[in-house]
């Protein structure tokens, strides 16, 4: 079992309509499928292939990731906050696993 841990940085509060910067990082080996082990066998590809962020059910960003994305994929982007609510972050692994995290944000 991989030790996958998502980490997300979202401000605790924002004014209505404000644009905030969100930073996300997930610990994941992102095995590219290009490397070989010491016996010369190719290590199979095992990456996070998609990341999405939604706010109160509305999409903020949807990212498709390829093997060229670094280990522990870090993604930074901006989001508009029209009202108080919850950001939902989802990472999709090649092996079918889904990792989730969420962060509440208040208006004030």
């Amino acid at each position, binding site marked *: 079992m991989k030790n996958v841990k998502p980490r997300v940085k979202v401000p605790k509060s924002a004014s209505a309509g404000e644009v905030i910067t969100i930073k996300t990082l997930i610990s994941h080996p992102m095995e590219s499928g*290009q490397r070989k082990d010491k016996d010369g066998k190719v290590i199979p590809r095992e990456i996070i292939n998609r990341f999405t962020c939604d706010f109160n059910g*509305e999409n903020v960003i949807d990212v498709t990731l390829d093997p060229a994305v670094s280990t522990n994929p870090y993604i930074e*982007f901006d989001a508009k906050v029209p009202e108080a609510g919850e950001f939902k972050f989802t990472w999709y692994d090649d092996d079918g696993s889904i990792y989730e995290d969420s962060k509440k944000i208040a208006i004030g």
Partner: protein
Amino acid sequence: MTMTRRDALALAMGGFAASVLPLPALADATADAIAKFTGGATAGEGGLTLTAPEIAENGNTVPVSVDAPGATEIAIYAPGNPTPGVAVFKFGPLAGSQAASIRIRLSKTQDLVAVAKMADGSFVQAKSTVKVTIGGCGG
């Protein structure tokens, strides 16, 4: 058939063209990937900023950011990597700006390419050369 000076020149040019052909063939995978993204449309210039370091000491984590106000999607390609695709960002209705940063792997010194799909359906492209000291794709 007599060989005129013109024929000889044409022959020489043909030989030259054949000898440089293998190079564009390498970049074809990227061209194909971009064509798939744009649907064959030609990408213009301007409106898209691709920020990447001039020199990346470690090809395993190269910080890259893209910014294209008014874009709906931005794709990044690394033509020098074993597979050219890097990432595609699709911006939803709540995206605060059409910009994002990510850390990527580069196997060698190369020209990074970013292509953005604008809201009106047109495409723009930007390039940035990154010198890589240590490649980041394993051996």
